[in-house]
């Protein structure tokens, strides 16, 4: 009875929820006193908010993985997600405590893909839209670190406003799960129990993190959170073979990351920027920076469209994320992927 996958998934979900909730309560109460905090620049009065809330996500996923690993239920897949989250989370912790360089961070997040490559819990085939399948096990293996660096850092660059990174990642994870479920019921050979198990391990800690990080944020997730969330999303989609749905769902993130890089012309750290993409007035009204040297981020674009308050900009960004996730589900439902 203990090995019933539904029971294991339920237990994992409950453990993940409880541990991440307790960790976040501790972080919210004590991290400002410990000096681990950041300034919320988009609020009047610029309050200090506890940083590194992502630790709760990492601890939650680790605790939630224990039942499945102990009972050897899809152990290599669960370990694949867990080790990717731990490895990317470690890069995030180092970056939060001792700022990593603009080149070191993507290189280290790429290296965090090694556990996933060594465990090999994926098929090695790339399923493209309209029924095109490439069986490329060696190339696929080589591509995983690059994909991990792109996805993790895109989620990281998307963390510009309260809850944008965590909220959009929740949408992406739910969409990937729905995609796998749809494919299962349409006869696509997807293992719905594995999907449910991985979802129950990753979703509850992410939900708790969002509850604390959403507007107005009580905790910042830090690079610890954004990089590990990106790692979880990539591992989840690689194991499920849902790379194209992940790319479509992440279109706002990829657009934001790509234009950050192209307008600056190189890899960079946010602290290196001389011109900020947006200007925040004393009363909290946000304007797009008119200086042409400032990076053309998604937030700056949304502000240029006339969205003035932080809350309005967050809602606009989440609407774009909802659109790209709806396109993913539509693609699968119409049989285009």
């Amino acid at each position, binding site marked *: 009875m203990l090995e019933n996958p539904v029971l294991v998934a339920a237990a994992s979900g409950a453990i993940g929820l409880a541990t991440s909730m307790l960790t976040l309560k501790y972080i919210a109460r004590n991290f400002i006193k410990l000096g681990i905090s950041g300034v919320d620049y988009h609020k009047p009065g610029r309050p200090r908010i506890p940083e590194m809330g992502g630790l709760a996500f990492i601890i939650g996923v680790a605790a939630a993985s224990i039942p499945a690993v102990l009972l050897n239920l899809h152990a290599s897949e669960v370990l694949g997600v867990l080790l990717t989250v731990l490895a990317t989370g470690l890069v995030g912790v180092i970056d939060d405590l001792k700022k990593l360089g603009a080149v070191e961070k993507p290189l280290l997040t790429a290296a965090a893909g090694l556990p996933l490559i060594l465990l090999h819990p994926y098929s090695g085939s790339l399923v*493209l*839209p309209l029924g095109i399948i490439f069986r490329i096990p060696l190339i696929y293996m080589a591509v995983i670190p690059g994909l991990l660096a792109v996805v993790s850092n895109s989620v990281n660059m998307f963390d510009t406003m309260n809850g944008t990174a965590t909220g959009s990642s929740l949408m992406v994870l739910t969409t990937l799960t729905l995609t796998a479920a749809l494919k299962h019921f349409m006869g696509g050979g997807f293992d719905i129990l594995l999907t449910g198990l991985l979802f129950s391990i990753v979703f509850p800690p992410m939900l708790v993190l969002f509850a604390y990080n959403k507007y107005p944020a009580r905790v910042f997730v830090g690079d610890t959170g954004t990089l590990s969330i990106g790692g979880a999303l990539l591992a989840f989609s690689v194991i499920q073979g849902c790379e194209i749905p992940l*790319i479509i769902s992440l279109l*706002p993130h990829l*657009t934001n990351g*790509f234009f950050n890089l192209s307008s600056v012309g190189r890899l960079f750290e946010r602290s290196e920027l001389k011109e900020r993409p947006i200007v925040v007035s004393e009363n909290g009204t946000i304007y*797009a920076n008119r200086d042409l040297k400032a990076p053309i981020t998604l937030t700056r674009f949304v502000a240029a469209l006339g969205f003035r308050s932080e809350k309005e900009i967050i*809602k606009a960004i989440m609407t774009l994320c909802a659109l790209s996730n709806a396109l993913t589900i539509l693609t699968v439902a119409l049989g285009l992927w």
Partner: protein
Amino acid sequence: MSRLPSLKPLVLLILFNYVVIIFGSHVFYTIQVNIERILRPLPRPLVGFVQAVVGLLLILLWIFVWLYLYKHLFLREMRRGEESSNQV
């Protein structure tokens, strides 16, 4: 979703990329297969090289159009903002 009309330029960008991902991969695949068919008499490494170069050019073309669209739409919105603030 009531905000979608005011987000028109960004929605357009997402839809453009979506169409490229869905239909572009089929176009990409067809071009690669046809290159192989036409160049079959040539040595295999040369065919592979041509396929890689054409593939890379197609991806660069996508990125160029994406970049151009994004910058063009952003600058248009900035100009509009400036014009309306000048009128006030």
